[in-house]
């Protein structure tokens, strides 16, 4: 469906994207996960033809992006910003974007009506977009890229700044589109979104794709360890817990951050009884215990030494 190879983009002295490449199949959601400024939006801009590439190749359904309209009409772009005309109504916006993708007549009318119903905006169709809430605008922004039923949908941080209700509606729509066979490129810096929606994930940082695979494959690439977090309520001198934990054989490392004790171990469930016994013996009874399995945040931390939201 989508083949992107060796994408490169430089802004002045800064290398924004360097040799990024991946493939997305029909009915697959591919997540580009990375912090702000990692190169996600630049990658999408090159794939959609908004930005010229300094190098690399993009093919959609076997058609080179450089062939122009035949490739471009197969792409649906939903940019990170709300790219709607605020002084036009919702219907006028959708009619305009539909016409730009060569829809006309009854096909255009029915596509617009269907899109308005999909995002529950039929009753506000003839209101100006400027009067909509952020979440409503975000939903409309999304369906404006879907009117022409593209093969590839690119979603650039579509849930940025939306309310939980709109976020849930967007997730439902993305899942339905995937089930309908659409290939979806989804960028986000929210790990939870990537874990919920994406079949495969590419982790991007500093303009480079540093890891790629399913969630399980990515987690397996990094050290497979659990994290146990303990709080001690009103216990006396809880900082003593760090030294106690470090003395146990199953514990890889431990750290007291002033409020919690974080303990890293190969297998959290096997380590926990021994840890609890040692703490109780020292009269440090935990008020709360969480055993946390590794996630994409840990993968990113392991690969880059930084947190996703740094």
């Amino acid at each position, binding site marked *: 469906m989508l083949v992107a190879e060796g994408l490169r983009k430089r*802004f002045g002295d800064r290398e*924004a994207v360097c040799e990024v490449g991946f493939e997305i199949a029909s009915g697959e959601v591919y997540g580009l996960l990375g912090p702000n400024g990692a190169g996600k*939006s*630049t990658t999408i*801009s090159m794939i*959609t*033809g*908004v*930005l010229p590439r300094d190098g690399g190749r993009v093919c959609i359904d076997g058609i080179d992006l450089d062939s*122009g*309209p035949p490739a*471009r*009409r197969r*792409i649906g*772009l939903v*940019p*990170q*910003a*709300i*790219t*709607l*005309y605020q*002084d*036009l109504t919702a219907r*006028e916006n959708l009619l*305009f*974007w539909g*016409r*730009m*993708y*060569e829809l006309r007549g009854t096909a255009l009318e029915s596509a617009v009506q269907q899109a308005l119903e999909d995002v529950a905006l039929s009753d506000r169709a003839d209101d100006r977009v400027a009067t909509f809430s952020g979440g409503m605008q975000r939903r409309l922004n999304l369906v404006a890229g879907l009117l022409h039923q593209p093969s590839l949908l690119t979603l650039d941080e579509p849930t940025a700044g939306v309310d939980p209700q709109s976020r849930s509606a967007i997730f439902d729509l993305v899942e339905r589109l995937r089930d309908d066979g659409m290939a979806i490129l989804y960028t986000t810096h929210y790990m939870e979104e990537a874990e919920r929606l994406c079949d495969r994930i590419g982790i991007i940082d500093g303009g480079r794709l540093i890891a790629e695979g399913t969630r399980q494959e990515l987690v397996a690439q990094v050290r497979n360890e659990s994290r146990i977090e303990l709080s001690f309520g009103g216990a006396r001198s809880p900082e003593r817990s760090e030294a106690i934990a470090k003395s146990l054989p199953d514990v890889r490392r431990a750290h007291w951050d002033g409020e919690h004790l974080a303990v890293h171990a190969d297998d959290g469930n096997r380590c926990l009884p021994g840890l609890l016994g040692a703490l109780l013996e020292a009269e440090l009874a935990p008020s709360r215990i969480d055993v946390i399995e590794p996630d994409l945040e840990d993968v990113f931390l392991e690969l880059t030494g930084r947190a996703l939201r740094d």
Partner: protein
Amino acid sequence: MELRLALVICAKDLRQRLRDRTAVLVAVVVPLLLAGLVGLSLGSNRAGVELRLALVDGDRGPHAEALRAWLSRPWLEDVILLEDSESVESASRLLADDEVDAALVLRPGFAETSANPEAPLTEVLASGGNPFATRMTVALAERFLSDRHASLELPQLVPTSPTGRLRTVDFYAFSMTVLFLTFTVLSGVRSLQQEVEAGTLARLVASPASARAVLAGKLLGLLLLGWLQMAVMIAATSLLFGTSWGHPLSVVCLVFTSVWMAIGLTSFFMSVAGDAEQGQMLASISIFLLAVVGGQFMPAQGLPDFFDTLQRLTPNGQAARGFMDAAALAREGGLPALAEPLLFTFAVGSAGIWFAGRRARFAVERALR
């Protein structure tokens, strides 16, 4: 397909602009009010374009006769009131007594194009404060000479009287229309810059429309917006103030190049600014300064020649001057006589559009970084 997409963009842009009530106010209501209030309160109330012209025929040859006949054609009857004068002195007296607006002096040898090419064979005597009468006479003489393919010297201007016959309301109708045309076009150019900043232009670039089609659609929208404003202003000033704009062909050409100039000028200012707000500020101040320098707020009556030169150096001044000349030529086409304002405004417009176009791609990239 490319054309269809360009028209879709153009139609969307026009819909947005016409929905903006402030833009309509700036495009039509404000210039009409200003032209009407200032023009009618300061100026004379004579109706229509009229030139009282004294002709001093010192040549008395067939060429001079032909000129007299050319100026007396039936459809110029109500426009040019021709009066023969015996000598330059008597013509000067008529001017001083405000009995004529200008005098055209034909020196001996006017009919013989080969005779003494260094000597001025014609002169225009006019009131120093009557640029309209002066320009109208010069334009008529140039037109006649151009028609005859005669390689004669162009007329020299000899200001002689402080009184004027250019109706103040006509002056303000021309100058306010040109001034507010620039502001109207600026609102369209500003919206283009806003599209860059909002990301809608990037979304357009990603669509099947080529960059050429996007640019053509945007440009066509601005042209139609400018033409529409000019058409409304010409119709309104003709109906309300009786302003005569001249031969339709001249007016059409001037409207095209003036709108082109306004697009180029405002695009240039917008493209050198950091964002739409800065661009609006920079362009507004520049347009205002150009209007002052270009003599759009006050007729050049009684001012030194220096101001005339300044007016000729500004694109907006040239545009307003072109419309005055077109009115002076009345029902004559007179395109050769309008060559300077037409070429100047077209050149300025082209340069500005070229410059802004080159920076547009950079602006999109900068917005996406």
